[in-house]
């Protein structure tokens, strides 16, 4: 391992309402692969964007090759030799490989005319250095995702990068493609490039990195040598919080089975998913973003189609339903993005509440407004929703109060099973515990509840039983004392090794 190439000291970055990075310091040496790990929202991506010139830090210093440096923008970062390989690839599909490699920095003459031959020649040599199987004239839109990633990596050659940052590079690669990527990373490393590697996948981190820095809630928890640590230590550093939030769990009194799913599969999305949920039970579904959790429940509800699988509703087998049939049966799905899928923002709380069940509120298609108002008032007080009145546009309400209206709208149809996808994402602590209370309350009343969450304390705190999902499959089920954060992390990051063994 060589000298320190890049060092950040005391970086702080705040966004309205959140401190994304709080006095962060760490360094990258030449010829090392340095992992950056942490839970969703720990600040990894923000830190990378600061390094790549996409965010300006509020405080702190970047010391690059021994001297304090200002990174003016993404192109400036690349010219200085700092390259970010985005998770969502940052390419222009209609342009050629050569044009994409040098995007924003094309060679031109004085009149802005492209020097196409020079561009092509330089791009070709960068591709050769990486051993890519395609030429500089290929249109990027015709390449596979892995090949497109190579185009981004070729920028490291083209700009002679000293620091390359990989953000979740294996998220959409197959195993073979992953091996090729690791070979490329080792090649860069051998040439003295300093590499930052961000990933959720612990086996990859222990496979390829030299040091690990752990971020939590925007703060650095520590940096350790990969060879001298183990999964347990890193996990503890990642979670390490005290459970200061108080969770209420409904009493474990279960009735008959409401829903059972068997062998539900959809090629490339999830496979052989099976579970069941009973009356009065809260079933947690944990997994990282992209594990396929939302896709599974959306399929059960009928928003998406499955390739195969069986569904049993109250013990009887049914065909995969349409959303309308699901609603009529007594199923409710509260989606993750309430702005896009859950609410009509310009309408008031009254109209939003009655929207999916206008049949209940009307006769011969004429709305029964007093009935609508009564239901609105019932849920306003039951969920203690803060709104000035039935017609205040929900866009003016806080995230927590919006979420309560989403719940109200599904509850007034009196469902038997309610599925909550990330019910507390982006809402304040007070509203969070109100929603947790409500979940317990619903289960107590005999509803079956499925809660999807990326927040481990939440999913462990409200559920009676937790399923761990990873890469489209249910990899573990925990109940009672086995429901711990360590077990969950272990399950979602380790199952690949287990499967191989």
């Amino acid at each position: 391992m060589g000298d320190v190439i890049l060092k950040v000291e005391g970086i702080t970055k705040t966004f309205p309402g959140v401190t994304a990075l709080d006095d962060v310091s760490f360094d990258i040496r030449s010829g090392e692969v340095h992992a950056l790990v942490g839970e969703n929202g720990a600040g990894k991506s923000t830190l990378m964007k600061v390094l790549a010139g996409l965010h300006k830090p509020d405080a702190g210093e970047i010391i690059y090759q021994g001297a304090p440096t200002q990174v003016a923008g993404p192109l400036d970062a690349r010219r200085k030799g700092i390259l970010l390989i985005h998770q969502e690839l940052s390419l222009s599909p209609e342009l050629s490989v050569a044009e994409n490699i040098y995007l924003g920095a094309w060679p031109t003459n004085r009149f802005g005319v492209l020097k196409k031959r020079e561009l092509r020649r330089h791009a070709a040599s960068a591709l050769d250095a990486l051993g890519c199987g395609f030429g500089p004239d290929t249109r990027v839109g015709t390449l596979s995702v892995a090949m497109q990633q190579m185009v981004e990596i070729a920028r490291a050659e083209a700009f002679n990068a000293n620091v390359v940052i990989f953000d979740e590079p294996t998220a959409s690669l197959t195993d073979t493609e992953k091996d090729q990527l690791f070979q490329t990373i080792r090649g860069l490393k051998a040439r003295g490039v300093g590499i930052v590697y961000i990933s959720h996948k612990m086996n990859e981190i222990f496979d390829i990195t030299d040091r690990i820095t752990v971020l939590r809630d925007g703060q650095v928890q520590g940096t350790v040598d990969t060879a001298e640590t183990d999964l347990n230590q890193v996990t503890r550093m990642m979670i390490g919080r005290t459970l200061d939030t108080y969770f209420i769990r409904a009493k474990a009194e279960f009735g008959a089975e409401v829903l059972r799913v068997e062998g539900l599969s959809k090629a490339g999305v999830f496979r052989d998913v099976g579970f069941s949920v009973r009356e009065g039970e809260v079933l947690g579904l944990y997994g990282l973003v992209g594990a396929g959790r939302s896709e599974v429940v959306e399929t059960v509800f009928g928003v998406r189609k499955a390739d195969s699988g069986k569904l049993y509703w109250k013990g009887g087998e049914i065909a995969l339903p349409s959303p309308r049939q699901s609603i009529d049966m007594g199923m409710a799905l509260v989606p993750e993005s309430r702005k896009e899928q859950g609410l009509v923002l310009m309408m008031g709380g009254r109209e939003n509440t009655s929207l999916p069940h206008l049949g209940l509120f009307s006769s011969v298609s004429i709305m029964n407004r007093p009935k609508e108002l009564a239901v609105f008032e019932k849920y306003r007080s039951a969920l203690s929703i803060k709104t000035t009145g039935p017609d205040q546009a929900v866009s003016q309400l806080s995230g927590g109060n919006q979420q309560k209206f989403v719940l109200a709208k599904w509850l007034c149809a009196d469902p038997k099973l309610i599925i909550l996808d990330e019910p507390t994402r982006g809402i304040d602590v007070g509203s969070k515990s109100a929603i947790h209370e409500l979940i317990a309350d619903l289960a107590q009343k005999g509803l079956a509840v499925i809660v999807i969450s990326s927040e481990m304390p939440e999913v462990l705190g409200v559920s009676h039983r937790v399923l761990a999902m990873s890469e489209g499959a249910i990899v573990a089920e925990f109940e009672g004392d086995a429901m711990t954060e360590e077990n969950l992390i272990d399950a979602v990051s380790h199952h690949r090794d287990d499967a191989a063994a």
Partner: protein
Amino acid sequence: MSHATDIRAGSPLQSVLGWLLRNHIWVFLALTIIVFSWASPYFLTVNNIGNILTQGAFIGILAIGMTMVMINGEIDLSVGAVLALASALAIGLQDHMGVWPAVFLGLMSGAALGFLNGTLVALSGMHSFIVTLGGLIGIRGLVFVYSGENALMVPDFSYTEIPEVYLGPISLTAMIFFALALFFQWVLSSTRHGRETYAVGDNIEAAHDAGINVKRHKIINFTICSTLAAVCGILLSMRLGTAEPNAGRIWELWTIIAVVLGGTRLQGGFGSMWMTIGGVLTLAVLRNGLRLLNTPNYVELMVMGAVLVLALVLDKVLNHKGYT
């Protein structure tokens, strides 16, 4: 994201087929020409072809600028109004300052309005549909204020002889259209501004992250578009000898139809002047051919509407074959 091989690579035959697949409007154009040649004896005459080219050239010059703006991922609805203003200024100012200064000021009015459109779109973050819709209404109002709601008459009719230059059947207006189209095709394919116009329209995030000055390209393209609208307005004033305050009304729609018919993508990132020339000529042939057959005006509109939808369906089908 497909693993499809690049159809432009390979043998010459394959590359011709690939070009035709991307520029299928030319196949469509050939078909319409064949149909009308068969249906009307007057269609395939030198005189009529000259007519088609001249008639098409006006929408064509507008379509060149619109193609730049649309590849950039925007739209410009104000071209018809800009055309009317430039034509009114070029004729109305001749009494005060002579022919060429008036023409120059007409051109400048286009450039200035385009710069304004582009700046408003780039800086405000408003959608160009709204900004230029405002331009369409506001500039048209300005034309009426300036012309006092009357058609302006050229003081000296030698002005109308300026475009009377022919190369065989091809008028000066048509030559200007083709020259501009070739020039801007070169700009698109060979200059940094042109290629970055694609990059911005294709994936604006990637372009921004790569350090491309997104706003500058938008302002330049809106300026080009309106300047070309002014060129079109001035050529129209030379042809007619008058400036109607209603000149160019709904031409912005015919222009967009021609560009989209050619295959340039409304969402940006894809298109070329070859496609636009094809779209412009197809539109001109259809209008001319239907008139030669004495089609009633409303039937003509119905046919044009049907053709547009058909061409877009074809485009969609070919798109799904995975060539883009």
